[in-house]
């Protein structure tokens, strides 16, 4: 079984989950955890080949005419993500079995979770940028469902919607950017873009809009400033979701995209200033805001923001050291943050509170959770023997080595790390030590499913921290190599670098972190005014205002255009069409080509005269029923005309539609009151003018279309000629409907279906139905 089979299996498992849950109940998780774990094992077997500088590629044509193919590409960068997603995913599936134990909607939860996992795996393995976008949007939608899992809570729904709107808007911008990029580069395949000589892509004409649009996508997804606010609000989700989406995976999709495009975009003049500074601002915003939280989960959310900022900043700096540091940091963060989110969820689940001011002395009550959280916190703080230490060393080295505002990088880097260290103490150490305090629920250890994941992730952090060599050559090196465009890049990760500036800074960081932790309450009260002031002008309030504004505009235009009166709709649509056609008319002269027209027959003229009489009569009759009948005459006249011009299919359909329309009209009119109010004279004149204009415009359109036949070969000739040989049918109309233009027909019947459902909803589901 290959990579794609595993991804497909995970999707399939998702769709099977609700059914499995009905049969197996809470045990579903054990079965489903096999899928990501199997995928993880499979990805491990790919490591040697990729570490040797190789890459894998699969391609299946999908819509070749649009340059869209199902093409997948796995190199060092993808593989690192694949491994992290599948490993953390395995533990999340297990964890959810404990955390959401007994919930009847667990099956639905697994559906969304596995959909998300599959999309995320697909995203990082995509080669085609349109395919990448599709997976990108799938992660947005599935995360919307996951964040809003507690959908009975208003705040939960609002948070889910906020995340969807922010990332969805960014996704749309990104789609525009990717299409521009694909057109400008001449290929939609990332691997081909990366194979171009350095500097080709960023020197393309019109690269600036591509750059801005793609970055908007990456920044919204990875919650970069000023789009960061959705991430902490997404903490309304259950703990397993936060641990998966908001630590290891989804929010890193933006970082992944930046890393993926780095070889093509990285040499652009604006790359380092924009990406680097946005990352730096996000990092500082994250740690600053985290200091003001007391909810365990929100603290973790804000530190995640800070890490996302750090990763983005390192990608922005873009030197060899920075890329290496970025990948190490990413791996370290995925290991400790997923573990800490899970342990915080366990604390919440088993004690009933997440308030750090209340939690104390839980260590003896929940020993496994405490161990895992402690390892996670030490890694987060960058204490030696854990991978967090290694990543922080490289982070400092990269900053020391970074071009640009030299010492400023250092100051903000160390500053952020100090606060991060203090927050690590708050989230992973303090709740477990000290005197035990009574909690809302009787505190006890969670089931094994809830601590096995954090423990194993902690063990991995410890193993990679003590022996960073293997992970350096097999995971970090290839990943950094893909970003740098050098597949054979060597990343010699070492625990010990001798006494140097980075080590000195690390020691300083730890000392300062403990200091900050001790003065944290005073710090908070001192900076409270600043925090409050920023909150009132921050991007989140702007989001609220924009949302309100959109609603106001929507209500206003709905009131004008969609006021529920059919005659106004007809008026608007008809009037707008007339204006549009009149606008383009000067470019398309109307030619009266009498020679090519079929001479009028007596029957044809008679039918037309009858239709005109019936149409005029419709306007003057006094009852609805007569109006239906006279309109029916017009419709049947059209059918006769179709017959005369040898279009039996159209004629037949027209007659059938006429018949059924009359039936529907009768049924609908049955319950309308009698016509009492008739239009005023002015309204009648307006309507008459519009109707005349509409008729005139349609006539002109027909004449123009008729004239075009003399300039270009009409498509109908191709259809008639190929109907039998290519599509096996002699009825061209039908062949067009079911073969040549089958996709259109599929769209049309879907519209029909939606219209029918709309009628059903309007008539049957009215809330005030008697």
């Amino acid at each position, binding site marked *: 079984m290959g990579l794609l089979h595993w991804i497909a299996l995970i999707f399939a498992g998702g769709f099977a989950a609700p059914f499995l849950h009905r049969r197996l109940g809470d045990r579903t998780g054990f079965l489903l955890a096999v899928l990501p774990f199997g995928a993880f094992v499979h990805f491990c077997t790919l490591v040697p080949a990729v570490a040797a500088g190789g890459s894998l590629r699969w391609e299946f044509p999908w819509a070749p005419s649009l340059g869209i193919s199902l093409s997948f590409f796995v190199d060092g960068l993808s593989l690192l993500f694949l491994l992290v997603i599948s490993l953390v995913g395995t533990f999340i599936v297990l964890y959810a079995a404990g955390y959401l134990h007994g919930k009847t909607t667990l099956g639905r939860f697994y559906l969304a979770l596995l959909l998300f996992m599959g999309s995320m795996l697909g995203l990082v393995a995509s080669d085609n940028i349109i395919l990448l976008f599709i997976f990108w949007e799938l992660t947005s939608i599935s995360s919307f469902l996951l964040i809003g899992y507690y959908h009975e809570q208003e705040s939960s729904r609002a948070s889910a919607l906020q995340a969807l709107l922010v990332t969805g808007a960014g996704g749309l911008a990104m789609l525009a950017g990717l299409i521009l990029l694909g057109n400008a580069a001449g290929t939609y395949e990332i691997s081909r873009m990366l194979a171009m000589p350095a500097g080709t892509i960023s020197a393309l004409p019109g690269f600036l809009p591509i750059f801005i649009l793609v970055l908007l996508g990456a920044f919204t997804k990875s919650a970069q400033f000023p789009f960061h606010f959705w991430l902490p609000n997404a903490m309304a989700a259950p703990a397993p979701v936060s641990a998966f989406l908001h630590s290891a995976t989804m929010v890193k999709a933006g970082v992944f995209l930046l890393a993926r495009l780095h070889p093509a975009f990285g040499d652009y003049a604006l790359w380092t200033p924009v990406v680097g500074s946005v990352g730096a601002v996000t990092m500082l915003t994250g740690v600053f805001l985290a200091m003001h939280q007391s909810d365990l989960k929100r603290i973790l959310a804000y530190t995640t923001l800070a890490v996302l900022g750090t990763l983005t900043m390192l990608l922005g700096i873009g030197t060899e050291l920075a890329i290496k540091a970025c990948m190490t940091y990413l791996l370290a963060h995925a290991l400790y943050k997923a573990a800490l989110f899970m342990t915080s969820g366990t604390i919440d689940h088993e004690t009933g509170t997440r308030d750090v001011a209340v939690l104390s002395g839980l260590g003896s009550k929940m020993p496994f959770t405490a161990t895992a959280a402690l390892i996670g916190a030490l890694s987060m703080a960058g204490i030696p023997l854990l991978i967090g230490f290694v990543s922080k060393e490289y982070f400092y080295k990269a900053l020391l080595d970074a071009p640009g505002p030299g010492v400023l990088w250092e100051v903000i880097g160390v500053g952020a790390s100090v606060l991060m260290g203090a927050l690590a103490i708050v989230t992973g150490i303090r709740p477990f030590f000290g005197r035990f305090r009574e909690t809302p629920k009787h505190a006890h250890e969670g089931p094994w499913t809830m601590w096995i994941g954090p423990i194993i992730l902690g063990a991995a952090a410890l193993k990679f921290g003590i022996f960073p060599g293997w992970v350096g050559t097999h995971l970090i090196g290839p990943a950094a190599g893909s970003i740098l465009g050098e597949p054979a890049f060597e990343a010699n990760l070492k625990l010990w670098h001798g006494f140097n500036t980075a080590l000195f800074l690390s020691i300083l960081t730890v000392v300062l972190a403990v200091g900050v932790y001790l003065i944290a309450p005073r710090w908070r009260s001192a900076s409270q005014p600043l925090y409050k002031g920023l909150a009132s002008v921050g991007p989140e309030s702007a989001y609220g205002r924009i949302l309100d504004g959109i609603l106001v505009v929507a209500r206003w235009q709905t009131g004008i255009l969609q006021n529920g009166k059919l005659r106004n709709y007809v008026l608007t649509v008809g009037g707008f069409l007339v204006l549009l056609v009149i606008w383009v008319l000067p470019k398309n002269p109307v030619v009266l080509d009498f020679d090519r027209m079929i001479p009028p027959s007596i029957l044809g003229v008679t039918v037309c005269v009858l239709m005109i009489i019936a149409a005029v009569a419709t306007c003057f009759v006094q009852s609805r029923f007569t109006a239906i009948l006279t309109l029916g005459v017009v419709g049947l006249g059209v059918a006769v005309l179709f017959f005369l011009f040898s279009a039996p299919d159209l004629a*037949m359909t027209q007659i059938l539609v006429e018949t059924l329309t009359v039936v529907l009209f009768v049924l609908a009119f049955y319950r309308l009151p009698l016509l009492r109010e008739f239009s005023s004279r002015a309204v009648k004149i307006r309507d008459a003018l519009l109707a005349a204009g509409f008729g005139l415009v349609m006539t002109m359109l027909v004449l123009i279309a008729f004239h075009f036949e003399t300039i270009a070969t009409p498509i109908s000739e191709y259809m008639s000629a190929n109907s039998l040989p290519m599509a096996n049918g002699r*009825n061209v109309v039908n*062949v067009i409907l*079911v*073969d040549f233009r089958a996709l259109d*027909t*599929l769209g049309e*019947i879907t519209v029909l*279906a939606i219209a029918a459902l709309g009628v059903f909803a309007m008539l049957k589901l009215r809330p005030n139905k008697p």
Partner: protein
Amino acid sequence: MNTLILNTTCRVIMGLLLVFSVFLLLRGHNLPGGGFSGGLVAASSFSLFALGYGVEAARRLLRIHPCTLIGIGLVVALVSAVVAPVWDLPFFTGLWDKNPLPVVGKLGTPLLFDTGVYIVVLGVVLQLVFSFSEEEPEKN
């Protein structure tokens, strides 16, 4: 509306119309007809029955809820589209059985697609007719 003449004739006509609708569907690829007109004819036959015997009776005769029919039709149409990709051909490529069957004629994915259209049209029209005629007139 409960009249002897309508009730008697509508049974006969309904059967004829239904047969005719299938006939239209099957011949559509070569001669005038097709899923859309076939579906409309089938829908009018049920509408006629509803006029004669009432909507409840028509619903019972149909057995399936029109909304379900719409769903089935869409799925059938979609299935006909994804047959080709199984053999590495583009989405919606028409595949035909070379040997025509007696009465039915040649079978192929476009015919299946047309059948989907037939079912959707039948479902949509009946949904409209049934919903409109079931609603009690509002007494002001």
